């Protein structure tokens, strides 16, 4: 086993060596600018980009001409939301989203609120699921866009994209999905699901960082966007800037590998995730699964360990790379806004750990992680005043805490 063990695949993934291999010639040999129309260097770069574009578009059920390359999913989400909001502002200024979207969706929506747009944040239940009835009821004559993610980056819960797409299509409202965590991991089809805009990125699927894409539907309906970046009118005017040719080539190769291995990999990763969850459940009391037990990304497990604080837990498993919903791990002092929106108490939100398994995760690593976690949780509970109080039968909600 190699240490440290990487179990943070929902944050990013290593670039697959097979991807790196196909990228290399585009740095040193085929280094042309894909926008150079008058020499071979440019033509070759353009050819490589168009081939990648087709593969990306077709893999999600669309076409190459519907792909706009960006720097990553954050830019794709910004372009989709700000671009649609500006282009359709005469039609309406109402957007529907959810409170557990990634910040790359929530922040542009809030920026639009500052500019006079109206944003509805749908309710989510304990598992992070939205209500389709509430979604449909929230659509108004001035609604222009519904933005709901495919799979949640923290808790793994999947949205019912096909059902959402039926509703948005019925009401003539555009449907954007942030599919950053989902593309290459679960089957997605923009036609079958009536998705009009779809954000994704290479680095979550074993491609390079710094390259992403936005699918923009061309027909039935044709989606229009105002650009958010100007400077040459690349990507049919929607996103100016020289294309990252090696990145785009790697992106396509990465998706091709994910697509070809999707079924077997999903099955293998679900088994690893469940193996870890079952071990933890068998040997520890007061633990809680966050997110939907079945409708979730194959590679995500999020667990709260009651009466143990997340950052101290991560310190106790220092040779394993995971992420915590605890406030202490981030710049802000708030615990995870996603867990809060689910109604998870702040104490349990501070105690959550996200495990992300991936292509290179082994059963041996999972067993080591389970042993290490169980040991660390027990050790910290031995020094936890909360665990002691609970053992004594004290109801913590009745204690008069001195918050600071």
């Amino acid at each position: 086993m190699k240490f440290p063990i990487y179990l943070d695949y929902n944050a990013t993934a290593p670039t697959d060596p097979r991807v790196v291999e196909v990228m290399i010639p585009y740095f040193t040999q085929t280094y042309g600018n894909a926008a150079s129309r008058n020499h071979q260097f440019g033509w070759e770069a353009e050819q490589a980009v168009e081939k990648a574009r087709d593969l990306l578009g077709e893999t999600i059920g669309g076409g190459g001409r519907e792909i706009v390359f960006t720097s990553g999913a954050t830019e794709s989400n910004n372009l989709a939301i700000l671009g649609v909001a500006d282009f359709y502002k005469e039609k309406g200024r109402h957007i529907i989203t959810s409170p557990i979207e990634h910040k790359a969706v929530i922040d542009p929506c809030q920026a639009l609120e500052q500019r006079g747009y109206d944003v509805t944040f749908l309710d989510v239940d304990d598992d992070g699921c939205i209500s389709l009835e509430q979604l449909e009821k929230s659509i108004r004559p001035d609604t222009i866009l519904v933005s709901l993610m495919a799979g949640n980056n923290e808790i793994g819960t999947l949205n019912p994209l096909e059902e959402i797409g039926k509703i948005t299509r019925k009401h003539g409202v555009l449907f954007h999905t942030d599919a950053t965590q989902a593309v290459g991991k679960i089957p997605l089809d923009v036609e079958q699901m009536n998705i009009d805009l779809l954000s994704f990125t290479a680095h979550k699927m074993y491609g390079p960082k710094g390259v992403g894409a936005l699918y923009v539907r061309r027909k039935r309906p044709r989606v229009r966007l105002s650009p958010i970046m100007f400077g040459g009118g690349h990507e049919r005017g929607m996103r100016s800037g020289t294309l990252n040719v090696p990145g785009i080539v790697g992106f396509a190769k990465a998706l091709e590998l994910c697509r070809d291995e999707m079924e077997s990999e999903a099955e293998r990763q679900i088994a690893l995730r469940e193996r870890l969850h079952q071990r933890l459940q068998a040997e520890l009391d007061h633990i809680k699964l966050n997110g939907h037990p079945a409708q979730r990304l194959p590679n995500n497990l999020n667990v709260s360990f009651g009466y143990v604080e997340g950052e101290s837990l991560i310190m106790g498993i220092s040779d394993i790379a995971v992420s915590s919903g605890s406030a202490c791990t981030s710049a802000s002092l708030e615990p995870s806004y996603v867990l809060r929106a689910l109604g998870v108490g702040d104490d349990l939100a501070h105690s959550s750990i996200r495990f992300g398994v991936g292509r290179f995760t082994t059963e041996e690593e999972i067993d080591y992680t389970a042993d290490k976690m169980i040991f660390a949780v027990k050790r910290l509970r031995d020094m936890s005043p909360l665990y002691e109080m609970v053992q004594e039968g004290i109801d913590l909600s009745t204690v008069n805490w001195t918050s600071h």
Partner: protein
Amino acid sequence: MAYSEKVIDHYNDPRNVGSFTKSDDQVGTGLVGAPECGDVMKLQIKVENEKIVDAKFKTFGCGSAIASSSLATEWVKGKTLDEALAIQNTEIVEELSLPPVKIHCSVLAEDAIKAAIQDYRKRQETSPESSASA
């Protein structure tokens, strides 16, 4: 986030973890913080003739909170109550090289010492022994 060596040392080998019987007249208990804030400290002192002869802690919190309370138990042992009351959070910050975002851990440890002493003194006023002699 990198931890100082001293924080890591206290985290890996916390001093004086445990509990005294709360009802013991010699014991003062301080419970500070709140679960929703991500840290709760329980610090207990055992007092003989105004002198702290033993101390124990239990902490729910990050590594710096655990280290701050572990250090606090080390420091109060052997001190008189008045000497222990003079311990400042800034001394804890300095000793453990806590970064600015972790200063609240040291504040909490100082609060825990003060709360434990206050609890002990309050118990002396109301304990049957002192009321019997009054």
